[in-house]
């Protein structure tokens, strides 16, 4: 033994520790166990949303359980982000829920991998009252993989308390153009001395460019499940926000930290922006969060561009797992969610206007003024014939992510709208055609 001090460490310890730490990089996920059969049927029902949505859904489920003795429903809900992650792992682990909520952009990711049941093969689900235009949004190759939970669309909400105080008149939304909206937004910023920005919509959500593409005579996603939007339209969409920012109507880069969150956390509610684009089934929540003097408007450009951009879109879709052990009972639950007025009396327009017109009719009297405004606008935009819209293709979630990424690059001036549009088309096509 040498008579010197050491710290008691050796090479071997380092090697062991390093290899252990590196090994953790490779551990994946495990599987799940199938539930035991026998006795009354228990359905697993999952969806995303907040506690308010859950409260309304639970009330409807209790009615379903009363009407269907022998079936109990175990429901779970989460925010949309973690929901999507958990859903993927449950399917991968061979333990999918029976009935589930599905985002438009994810439907074919799942369906074209054989994980979802064809709803047309389930006689317990009555589709007689559902319009074809709604069915087509969950259909591919003649098979129905997703059924709209209800329909909604996007709209412009303006905080009238702010515009009144600033003395800015809100243009007529039936005829306003994109230029009118830009002028209006810029004027609000000017007249509030820059305290409030006139426009505060989210450039990176695909529903905006989808509408613009339709107005310009293009289908963002085509009937044969391809990307149909032109590079020019995407460039225009980006350029519009850049011009509006330069004019002062739109906040500077980096202003929005958590756009697209809940109504209560929105910039409209904070009073730092005067207008925002929202899915209009959320109008009531935004109106309440922003002080109750919010008006719901149509999107600009509906009469000034080539054609109407609006479509009645599934708020989200219901699907049944192909591997569900109880497809009959799952179909019964889905039938209840679609066609039962008593259930709808509890959930109201929480997930959009019910797709069965009779059910939609039956709840009108129960709606609050905010929800009535939403339902009326849905009805009004459908009075004219609207161009058809199609199911989102496989790869649509990559398209959405690409748009988000490029919108930020444009926001901070790291790429030009023209280059961003070019990249968008390339990356989106690659994802869809893969």
């Amino acid at each position, binding site marked *: *033994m040498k008579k010197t001090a050491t710290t008691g460490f050796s090479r071997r310890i380092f090697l062991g520790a390093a290899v252990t730490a590196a090994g953790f990089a490779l551990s994946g996920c495990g599987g799940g166990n199938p539930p035991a059969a026998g006795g009354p049927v228990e359905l697993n029902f999952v969806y995303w949303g907040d506690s308010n949505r859950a409260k309304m859904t639970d009330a409807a489920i209790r009615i379903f359980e009363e009407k269907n003795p022998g079936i109990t429903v175990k429901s779970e809900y989460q925010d949309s982000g973690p929901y999507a992650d958990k859903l993927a792992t449950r399917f991968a682990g061979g333990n999918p829920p029976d009935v589930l909520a599905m985002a438009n952009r994810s439907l074919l990711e799942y369906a074209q991998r054989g994980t979802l049941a064809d709803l047309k093969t389930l006689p317990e689900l009555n589709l007689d009252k559902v319009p074809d235009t709604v069915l087509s949004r969950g259909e591919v190759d003649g098979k129905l993989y997703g059924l709209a939970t209800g329909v909604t669309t996007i709209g412009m909400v303006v905080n009238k308390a702010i515009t009144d105080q600033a003395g800015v008149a809100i243009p007529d939304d039936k005829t306003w153009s994109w230029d009118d909206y830009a002028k209006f937004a810029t004027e609000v910023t000017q007249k509030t001395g820059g305290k409030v920005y006139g426009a505060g919509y989210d450039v990176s959500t695909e529903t905006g460019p989808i509408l613009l593409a339709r107005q310009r005579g293009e289908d963002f996603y085509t009937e044969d499940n391809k990307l149909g939007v032109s590079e020019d339209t995407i460039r225009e969409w980006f350029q519009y926000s850049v011009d509006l920012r330069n004019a002062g109507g739109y906040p500077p880069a980096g202003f929005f930290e958590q756009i697209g969150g809940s109504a209560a956390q929105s910039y409209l509610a904070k009073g730092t922006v005067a207008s925002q684009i929202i899915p209009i089934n959320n109008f009531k929540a935004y109106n309440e969060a922003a002080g109750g003097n919010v008006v719901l408007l149509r999107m600009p450009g509906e009469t000034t561009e080539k054609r109407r951009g609006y479509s009645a879109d599934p708020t989200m879709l219901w699907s049944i797992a192909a591997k569900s052990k109880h497809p009959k009972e799952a179909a019964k639950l889905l039938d209840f969610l679609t066609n039962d007025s008593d259930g709808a009396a509890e959930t109201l327009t929480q997930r959009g206007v019910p797709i069965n017109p009779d059910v939609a009719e039956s709840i009108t009297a129960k709606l609050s003024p905010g929800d009535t405004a939403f339902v009326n606008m849905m009805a009004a935009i459908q009075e004219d014939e609207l161009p058809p819209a199609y199911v989102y293709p496989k790869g649509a979630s990559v398209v959405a992510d690409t748009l988000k990424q490029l919108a930020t690059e444009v926001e901070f001036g790291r790429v030009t709208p023209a280059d961003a549009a070019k990249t968008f088309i390339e990356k989106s096509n690659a994802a869809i055609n893969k």
Partner: protein
Amino acid sequence: MSVLTKQAPGAAATIAAGPPGRRKQGSPRRRNQRSGYLFLLPWFLGMLFTIVPFFASLYLAFTDYNLFTEPNFVGLANFQAMAEDPRLGQSLKVTFIYTFVSVPISLAVALLIALVLNRGLQGLAIYRSVYYLPSLLGGSVAIVMLWRYIFGNEGIINGFLGLFGIAGPAWVTDPNFSLSTLIVLNVWTFGSPMVIFLAGLRQVPTMYYEAASIDGASRWRQFRSITIPLISPIIFFNLIMQLIGSFQTFTQGYVMSGGTGGPADSTLFYNLYLYQKGFTEFEMGYASAMAWLLLMIIAIFTAINFIASKFWVFYDN
């Protein structure tokens, strides 16, 4: 001095050897080995749970596994696709910048604070805990959320800058700053290397410093010629562990960007991209291949470090 040398292994051997005289004990070396394996037992048990996914992922790396349908063998297709994937390049860039900026800084800060604490402050235990605390919390979701607010547009950082009339940038949402914000967060969690440094510093015999002082060596000279060589194995250990840890960063990027790696992929850590590939794009085969590339990268950097260590790490045993 010699007590210092063998203190830890000796103590371990006493525990592991059991009641004396029951039967003939092996040589001290054998006994040491046995106790060594005993201490490694938890790791072996844990390994049972990682070994299956470990080899499964090796297999899946050569398939087109998409989570839902049976995997098909595709040879090296995943690795070829990786070579042409611009986002993979971006994720490597983010991870490398993060690692090579934050690891040296956090080690330097850890050593500095450890040196200060080692001078025998009053209430050392309290300081030690206070500085160690961020390490326990730094990887947690709550702290990353807190970080978002501290660095947010209306957060205290920009509030403070505002006092001096400086309009701070959007630390979190500006792609030019978002990664730096996470690097600062990582540096802030210098606590665990600090505690290890502190333990090392306490084992450097004071007689060396006394002898050096008598010979007229300056503090800086003492630090360079006594402290650094004697704790070099610990610096090495911390370096390796920090490198491996930061190559595998996930939580910070995931929480800060809401899972997207944004703004504009500026916080797209390698593991975050791997996760997106596996669980949002359902390309688990590709994600598995990515995991093996990361293992290779970590192995190469660790190997380089081990080779380089021959020239600067001083082992006394």
